[in-house]
Each structure stands twice: as structure tokens, then as C-alpha cells.
């Protein structure tokens, strides 16, 4: 089985969650973390993370500062803001609801559909 294509908007949510969980992190770190957590199931061109980061930053949900990494490399570090956490909570709730509905819909059995059709 091939890797999963990311749904529109899901990358932003992943980035927010990663930053909330891990604290300030640079682009490479975020990308690696997502790959690891997903068990390398997500097809992620690491480069796309930067489009997501600029999108989130322009909305004020994350902020960035240049800093130094563990192995002494200069890198741009991103951190989640207060409004970013709020957004994360809202998006996570939404996502949970959506997956709940999707689960139910996909678990639908054929005769149930037939009954509704007859009603």
C-alpha cells in the first residue's frame, strides 16, 4: 500500500498540534516529527511544510524566531501562540466530529439503506 495523500487543511492542523506538543521547533524538526508519528504513512514532501508555516504565521497562530539547534545549526524556530492554541482546540474538535461522522457513514450496512429507501 502506498503512502497517504494529505487532505486539504490537515497539514496545518498537524503542524499546530506538533508545536503544541513539542514546544518551539524548526521546520525540519516539525516535518520529521510528523513523519515519525505517522509511522511514515504520510506522503510528505518536507518542502510543503514551509507553505503551511507561512500560512499559519500570517494568521497569527504561530510565531517565529531565529535560534540555534541542538547540533549548533542556525535555524528558524516556530512556536504556537495563544490564538493558535484556541484554533488548535477548535480544529481538533471539528476533526473529531468529522471522523466520528465518517466512521458512522462508512459503517453503514446495505439493508439499512434499503429500509430508508422503502420508507
Amino acid at each position, binding site marked *: 500500500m502506498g503512502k497517504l495523500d494529505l487532505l486539504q487543511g490537515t497539514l496545518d492542523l498537524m503542524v499546530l498540534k506538533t508545536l503544541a506538543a513539542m514546544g518551539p521547533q*524548526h521546520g*525540519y524538526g516539525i516535518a520529521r516529527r510528523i513523519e515519525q508519528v505517522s509511522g511514515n504513512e504520510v506522503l510528505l514532501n518536507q518542502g510543503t511544510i514551509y507553505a503551511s508555516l507561512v500560512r499559519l504565521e500570517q494568521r497569527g497562530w504561530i510565531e517565529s524566531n531565529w535560534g540555534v539547534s541542538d547540533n549548533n*545549526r542556525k535555524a528558524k524556530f516556530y512556536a504556537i501562540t495563544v490564538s493558535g492554541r484556541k484554533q488548535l482546540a477548535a480544529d481538533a474538535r471539528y476533526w473529531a466530529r468529522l471522523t466520528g461522522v465518517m466512521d458512522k457513514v462508512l459503517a453503514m450496512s446495505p439493508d439499512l439503506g434499503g429500509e430508508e429507501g422503502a420508507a
Partner: protein
Amino acid sequence: MSLLRRCRERVRAFWNKPALDAELEAELAAHLELAIDENLKRGLAPEEARRLALVSLGGMEQAKEQQREERGLMTLDILLQDLKYTLRTLGRDRGFTTVAILILALGIGANIAVFSVVNTLLLRPLPFTHSEQLVRILEKDPKGGESSMTYSTDAMQEFQAKNRSFQQVTGYFAFSGPDNNKLTGKGQPEPVTGLMVAGNFFPTLGVEPLLGRQFSAEDCLKNSRPVTMLSYPFWKRRFGANPGLVGQTIDIDGKQVTVVGVLPNTFDFGSVFSPGAKVDFFGPAIFGDMEDWGNTMALVGRLKPGVTLGLAQSEADSLFPQLHSNLKHPEYGDNYTANLMGLKDYVSGKLRRSLIVLWCAVGMILLIVCVNLSNLLLARAAARGKEFALRTALGAGRGRIVRQLLTESLVLSGAGAILGLGMAFVIVAWLAHQGSIALPLLGSLRIDGAALGWTLLIALATSVLFGLAPGLRMGRGNLQAALKDGGRGASEGRSHERMRAVLVVSEVGLACVLLVGAGLLLRSFLQVLDVDLGFEPSHSAAISIAYDDVGDAVKRGAIWQQVIQRVKQIPGVEGAGISDNLPMSVNRSWGISAKGHTYRKGELADTFVYVVSPGYLHSIGMRLVKGRDIRWEDNDKKQAVVVINETVARHLWPGEDPVGRIAYAGGVEAQVIGVVADVHETNAETEAGWQMYLSATAPQFGPVGANLVVQTKLPPAALASGVTRVLREINPGQPANEFRPIQMLVDHASSPRRFFMLLVGAFAGLGLLLAALGIYGVISYSVTQRTQEIGIRMALGSSTGRVQRDVIAKTLWLAVAGIVLGTVASLAVARLIASMLFATSPWDGGTFAGMAVALLAVALVSGYIPARRASRIDPMVALRDN
């Protein structure tokens, strides 16, 4: 909230591009380093570590582009890129760019100018407050010139008092000629034009004086202190715009007249009520003095809010027949009628059709321009096929290429519009100062906001029109074929050519319609010039003379006789006479009937009346058909004499000899002594009305003013100083009036027709030129494309003549197709302009044939040049190249 913030950030990012790009560069570099570090730690070789890092990044450039797209304003970025690229390409192809912009500027400029005219005359409301409430009141059947479009002061006041539809009824004295007064100040007395208006004239129109005050009720009373309001141009020209003049007196006709106000510059009486006329000052009409003058007031009213024209008309229909022309003399009759006409309609209603035709003609020019440019762009497309194929191969989408091409056409039409606007400015400024064109409101012509909006609109429309077709066509190009060898010989080339041929045929068709329209209008104009006016305008000139006869006919006779005798002695003068009014200028009408006859209602017509000296009829070139001219001795108190025109003779004494008969002329018994040929008294196009000529020495009649007419073969300018000197010797107070050729009056009357004819003619010429350019372009291009083929044919023994003939045949085929198409369209269009034609059939064979010949000739010339080039192709060179 966050969206708004995002927009702001995007705009900021757009302006901050270099810094942000550098930062992104650094960030991605760091990313790569971090990834390599990790790979190295896992024990990979440096080469492999780097390769894998790049692979998982997924393309450096793509990552940057994605981020930039999210960050800034991509659309704008692309637009700027396209613009930069466009300017570079257009700059490289200077010849094409210049021709394209010039063609566009001509088309757009003409459109802006015509739009300004249409907007001023037709679309924009009149320059008065709530002008839609203003109404002109005319007689229902105005056959007798001004006299049948006017009312007496008593009737006017009675209507004012009785009606319930109008807020105000006002009017002006309709019989003022130009230069009817003289202003005496420093130096020579100066001729000036004064006009009497009802006291409430300006308040009714909603015109406020710039300085001073309106006329007051006291100003309009009998024997009140004379007052005047000056027009702005007169105040500025004659008194240097001196604000201190208000309250001062000026000397008009020897009377001290107090200036009470100055009118604003925006008010131009002539442009609304009497096109081509200028009025210098206004005086209050003193109704107390005017009771016995008859019908002299032209009426204008302002409807009450909410009252429709129809409602007011039905009230007027019941009121007007009851009005008295003179309350003291109820026996004078009271058969008034009223036709209410919106003032705007009165001013420009007659011009509506001409203006719309003009608008359509200029729109057609724009279409031709678009077709022409499409054509030029297609020719360029062929040459640029490779360039676009390359861009497509490098990843440019079709949308992006169409966008690039549309940017190019936008830039072209934008530049054309700017240049065109400049041209329109010049044309409009020139037109606004053409006082000799009898079109209303021309003086207020200007490029206004509406015209600028129109410019924007047509610039956009043209760029889409001429840019889209070639754009789509090019975006669709066949990549491989194009890359292989620039599309030459490929099917793409041939379909290009077919499309261009279609464009040229439609262009020729459009030019054809314009040519037919212009031809028909020109033919009509020539017919108008050819009309037998009943007098000869080319050999006479006239000057308005001042004299003081204290109302005595004997004295008047003596003065007139002296003037004529002295003027006749000037070398070069062949004849001289005096009339109060001249044809095609101011007129008035009375009644005439045969004595002893009773007439049914409607059997008699208002009759134009001229009080003239002996010799006048001859001096202006009128033809005496029967009987004799007026003599100085025709001053019998009991029985006057009258010369009638053929129309009057035909109606009053059908089949009989009118000479010697007795008539009632203007309520006075008069013997008919002569009959003259009909004179077109209003303009060349309308039929002659009833006319009569009365003796200036008869005590029964009084002339209104006096115009000395001098017959000469010399140019009038050569006589002007001599005539003026003689007049000054007789009357030192003679103002410096202009000595005007009678031809000027005729030209003035036909100036609207000349104006439209010239404009449509100019457009047709432009259309023809553009069509020629189009034909030339297509043929010349096809010759270039087929150089090789022609070379082979010539190598195989085809003669140069044969090659030439082939190219010319192709040209003619295009032209003939266009002409056939255009002729069909012209037949339809000709019917639409039939009402603008004069003595010309809309299906005038000569015009259609002339159009066809002109187009064929132009096609031949534009085909001959490439044909010649084709026949000069050297087979060796042609075959070796490529």
C-alpha cells in the same frame, strides 16, 4: 479576524519580497543542513546523505514557489512579470508597436470625441436646475417661421395667470438679430447683440447671476430706469471682467443703461435657444410697451413637480384657444394653439438620428480597428509560435499564455487610449470653438468624467476584442509542429491564413458600409448645395446699418435712398438695396389674403414679410417673374403695394394673373405689383413658405432694422472698408458691423449637414485606409509564407507575370467577398439613414458603384505591392533559404 490579518500580511509580503526571499533561502538551507546532519549520523556517506535530504525535501524550487504563493500576491506578481515581459517584447518590435498604437489611437480618439458630442447634445441634461421640468411652448403648425412660434405678451400673461400646470411661464423676445444695438464707450461705437427677456426668465431657468441681482418687478415697468444684465463673455471681453461695473451705467443706443448683474459663464443663451448666436446683454421685456407688437415672445415654462407633459398639454389644448392676442383689441383674433415640447427635445431632438448614426459610424471604425489589430497580432502569432511553444514546454499553462497575450493587448490599447484621449482633447477643444456650426450646446463641449469612463470602457473592450481571438488560437498551438520549424507549411499556418482572410473580408465589409453611408450623405449635401435658393448668395454681401428715422417713413426713405446711391458709387459695386430681414436669418410673418374673398380656416398661411427698398430684390439675386419692382414713390397712404412670391400667387389667385389685384397684407390694403420666384427663406432643405415684400417708404409698415445688401463680383472683404467708410460719412454713429457675404448665411443654415457629412466622410476614409492596410498585411504575409513555393514555381518556368496575377487575383477575391458582404449590409443601413438624406435615394446606384470601385482600386494597390515583391523572388535564393 485572522483572514483580515492574513490579507494585510500578504500585501506586506508582496512589498517585502527580496528580504523574505532571502530569509526563505536561509531557512531552506538550514533545513537541508539539518537533514544532512541526521543522515550522516545514521552512517550514510556524505554524497548519499545529501541526495536523500534533497529527495525528502521534494524539490527546492517547488518548496520556494509554494511558500511564495501562500505568502504574497501571486496574481499581482504574475501581472508585473507579464507587464515587464510585454514591454520588452513590444520594445523589440517597434514597427509593429507604433502601427498598432497609432491605429488604436485613431479609433479610440474618434470614439471619445464623438462620444463627447453625443453626450453633450443628447445624453447630458441641459445646464439648468431640474431641466427636465422645462418646456418650450410652440404653435402646433409652425409654418410661418418665428412668428408662428411666438405669442403676444397679453396671451403670455393670460396663460401664466390661468394655467395650473406650470410653476412659471417665461419667454424671450424672438426677433432680435445679431448686432442689433450699439455700445458707445471709448473709440468707435461697437455693434452688440441685446435680447429682451421676461423679468422672470433667469429665475425660471434656475440661472443665478454671478454678480449683482436678477431683474426686479420695477425694472419691467413702463418708463422705468433702463437696466441690463451682461453675459459673462461680453463682460470679460469688453469690460475686463471688472466687478465694479455692477451698478454703473453703460451707453447702449445713446441711452444710459444701468448694469444690475452679470450672468455666469455656464449660461450660454445661444447654445440652447439659437445655435450659433451670441448674446452680449439682456434687458427686461417691458410688457407695457409691447402690447401692440403682436406675437413676439418665445415661451418657455417650468412644469410643477409631478405634472407630466401630457397633462400640461391637455390643459394647454383647452386654454390656448381662449387666449387673447391683445386684450384691448379682442377683434384681433384668438386662435392660438400650443404644442408643448420638452426643452431638451426642442434643442436636440432633431439631431437625435444624425447623432446616433454618427455614433454607429465611429463604433464601426472601432470594430475595423479591432479587426485590423487582430490581424496584425495573428501575423505576429505566426512569428512567435516557437516562442510560445517553448514556454509551454517549460511548463507555462495555456491560461498563462493567454494571460500574457491579453496583457500585451491591454498595454497596446492602454497606450492607444492615452494617445487617443489626447487627440480627442484637441478635436473637442476645436469643435467647442466652432461658432459657425449651428449645433446647440457645442460651446459646452468638453471631455468630462463620463468621457473618461467611456475611454476606459472602450479601451478594455477593444483589448479583449482584438486580443482574445489570437490569444486563444495561440494558446492552443500544436507544440511539436511549432517547435519543429516555426509552424511553416504546417496546417496551423493555413488555418491562421484562413482566419486572417475572414478578418480582412469583414473589415472590407465594414469599410463598405461606412463608404456607402458617407457617399449617400455627401450626395445629399451636394444636392442641398444644388438647390435653387431663389437668390444668389455668392455675389452679395450684407451689413447691418444704423440710422434714425424717428419712425417717419419719409425720413427713412430719404436716408435709405442716400445710403444706396452713395454705396453704388463705390467701384466694384454692381447693385445695392436694403431689406429689414435677410433670408436664412431672422424672420417674421404676417398674413395676406385676396380682397373680397373669404377663406376657410387653414386655407391661409403665415406669410414671411420683408420691408425692402427698390433694388433689393435685384441686389440679392432674386428673380422678378411678373410685374415690377418696388419704387421709392410707392408711399401711398391709402393703398400700399406688395410684391408676392409664386407660392402666394398660386394659392391666392390660382390660374390667374395676380398683378394688379388687391390684397390685404398685414391688415392693410395693398396692390400686387409683382411676383418673384420662391426663396428658400429658412434653409435650402425646407420648401419655400408664403412670402411678401413691402415698400420701405409706405407709412403703413415699419421695418425692423435694416440690412444693406451689396451686389459685387469682388470678394466682399475688398469692399468692406469702402462700404463702412460711406456709411460712417452718412451716419458717424454707424457701429463697426461686419460686412458679411450672404453665402455665410446659407452655409450657416447647412452647417449641421456639412458637419455630419464631413465626420462620416472622415470615418469612411479612415475605414478605407485600415481596410487597405488589412489587405496588404494578409497578402504580404502570404507571399512571405509562400516564398519557397513561388521560388519552385518560378524555377519550373512560371513567368513573373503569372506569379503577379495569382497574387492580385487572391487580393481581388478578398475584396470582392468583402464588397458583396458589405453591399448587403449597406442596403440595410441605407434604409436607416434614409430620413437624413436629401433628394437622394438610399439605394443610389451611383454611390454603391462608386464605393465598389473605390474599394477595388484600394485593394488593387494594396495587393500590387506584395505581388511585385513576389514576382521579384529569386528562385535560387528562395530555395536555398530554409
